[in-house]
């Protein structure tokens, strides 16, 4: 039996020990890149992450439990381009070790439970077919039932063409639970990473209560070549980059990788799940302070308005009651 020394592997460095940064062309030592969360130490370029690297980055160690790991795509159309779809799926499974382009599960960020879904661009361009849509819909539904925040990290070219309109309808399937999260008072946070385009951006990814993005991530509806080819216009500087979306009002913050876990944790603290139903008034964390003061203010304002313009303003309630204004003549 050969004797193994713990330090022996350090001598034979692997051939691909270096990676060239596509942004600044600097050669970066791979281990340095890994230590730096796969961010170029020279220019700050954010390399793409696998779902595994993303989990390690965002979640408390040992907190993640994957759900629906065995959920995978079928080939509903018998799709065949230059290669059969089933072969492409198999190749992607071997390459990534994933069953599908998304995983979801329950984990913790600074001790707070969240339902989190993550897309992996390496699995067929992170494209959303029936299985990815089903996983994300279940992620949102579990957030709803367990009353925990939902977080999705995107990296996707869009809907998966090989499943035709079944993929297109995943836009609606993943969006349908979101109004229910709204009604139940469950926060939904999206982190857009490079690249997020097409159908994924045109559904749940644009609909977060808070939308964060990684620096310089490509984020857009149509490919940049399509955009310039269609209109013949010069594309604006930094077109479809995260900074472009921030300046146009579609992203809340651009967050560098080292800040992401802390930023999510802060959002989870400052945007808590609403108390269920009538617990609103009884919750000691909320019954006093700004909300109590505001509702008192609303009553005073309502009274004042009634006096001034002869309209009875009923106090606004939660759970679907909207503020109702009635003309005094019609009121009893």
């Amino acid at each position, binding site marked *: 039996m050969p004797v193994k020394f713990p330090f022996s592997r350090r001598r034979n460095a692997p051939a691909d020990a270096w990676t060239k940064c596509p942004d600044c062309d600097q050669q970066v030592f791979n281990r340095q890149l890994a230590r730096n969360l*796969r961010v170029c130490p020279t220019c700050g370029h954010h390399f*793409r992450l*696998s779902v*595994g*690297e993303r989990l*390690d980055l965002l979640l408390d*160690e*040992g907190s993640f439990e*994957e*759900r*629906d*790991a*065995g*959920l995978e795509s*079928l080939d*509903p*159309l018998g*799709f*065949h*381009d230059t290669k059969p779809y*089933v072969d492409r799926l198999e190749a992607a499974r071997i390459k*990534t070790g994933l*069953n599908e382009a998304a995983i979801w599960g329950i984990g913790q960020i600074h001790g707070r439970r969240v339902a989190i879904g993550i897309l992996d661009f390496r699995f067929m*361009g*992170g*494209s959303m077919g029936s299985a990815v849509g089903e996983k994300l*819909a279940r992620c949102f539904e579990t957030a709803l039932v367990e009353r925990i925040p939902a977080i999705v990290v995107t990296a*996707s*070219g*869009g*809907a998966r*063409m090989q*499943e*035709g*309109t*079944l993929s*297109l*309808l*995943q*836009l*609606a*399937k993943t*969006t*349908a639970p*979101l*109004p229910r999260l709204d009604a139940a008072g469950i926060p939904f946070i999206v982190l857009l990473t490079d690249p997020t385009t097409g*159908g*994924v*951006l*045109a*559904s749940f*990814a*644009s*609909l977060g209560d808070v939308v964060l993005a990684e620096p310089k991530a490509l984020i*857009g*509806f149509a490919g940049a070549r399509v*955009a310039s080819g269609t*209109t013949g*216009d010069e594309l604006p500087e930094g077109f479809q980059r995260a900074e472009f979306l921030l300046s*146009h009002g579609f992203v809340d913050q651009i967050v560098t990788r080292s800040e992401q876990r802390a930023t999510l944790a802060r959002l989870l603290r400052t945007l808590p799940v609403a108390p269920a139903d009538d617990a609103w008034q009884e919750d000691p964390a909320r019954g006093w302070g700004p909300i109590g003061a505001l509702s008192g203010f609303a009553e005073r304002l309502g009274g004042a308005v009634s006096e001034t313009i002869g309209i009875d303003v009923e106090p606004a309630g939660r759970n679907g009651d909207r503020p109702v204004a009635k003309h005094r003549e019609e009121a009893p």
Partner: protein
Amino acid sequence: MTGVLAPPPEVVEEAWRRVMLARHPQRPRTLDLLPLIFEEVTELHGDRLFGDDPAIVGGPALLDGHPVMVIGHQKGNDTETNIERNFGSARPEGFRKAQRLMRLAEKLGMPLITFLDTAGADPGAAAEERGQAEAIASSIKLMTELQVPIVVVILGEGGSGGALAMGVGDEVLALENAVYSVISPEGCAAILWRSPDDVRTAAAAMRMTAQDQLELGVVDVIISEPGEGAHTDHAATARAIKTAVVAAMGRIQQRGLQSLLAHRYARLRSIGRYQETVAGPRVRPEPPSLRRRLGRLLHLPGVRAPRWSEIWPGDEEHDLEDGE
């Protein structure tokens, strides 16, 4: 190669024939059909945010005397009208106008009827600046929760997100020669076959005809077209659509509001085909023990806790493909 075969030539030709019919320049457009189906159609304009998009039209109307809201894509019939209508490719202000009309329909309790006829949403830089993706996403979201019955009619091309933004409903009807797809056959051929010559094969492979969509459960009812196709007789097409819409509305209105929304949710939720294999969840072992943490600190071999990035490591190779 496994046993999967390319579609046979007759299937390819049939699919392409349908695409050509769906794109026929004389095919009746939304504004041609509205006066033939409804009474007192009143077009409303503008999204109250930025502008008015001529690629989407809509407003209140009467269907057999009942107030309804109608919204549809509007293509032109020749180069001039197509330029005016942006070839039926809506911009964000079009989808936001549609949302405004949907909210009005909800406020007044009017059923909503939408007509799809678009190759896709406008992919231009200006549309992008005004949030094309957000406009489509919020339209879809609004339709999933809109508290009035929704009937969707696919008139010609149901192209991708631009169609789905007005295509979420309680029943989806399609004209016999309509098509519905996740991406245009041209786009699909360019990305997957990397050649524009395979556009017909792409059309067949995506199974985009109305009959295919019925089999996939995306479309509920097919409306027969007169003669050689809808372009031969607009009036007869309108009559067929009206009969089908009234019948669909009758079926939907038997449900109460709560059951209507529950049914719509269940319909969307059930779309898609997947399997659940017995592969158990990849549950991580408990948080690292003191021994593991100490071992890791001292770089002792064999005691380092596994990390998720070792189960699913990253790599440098990224193919930009397979998405729409």
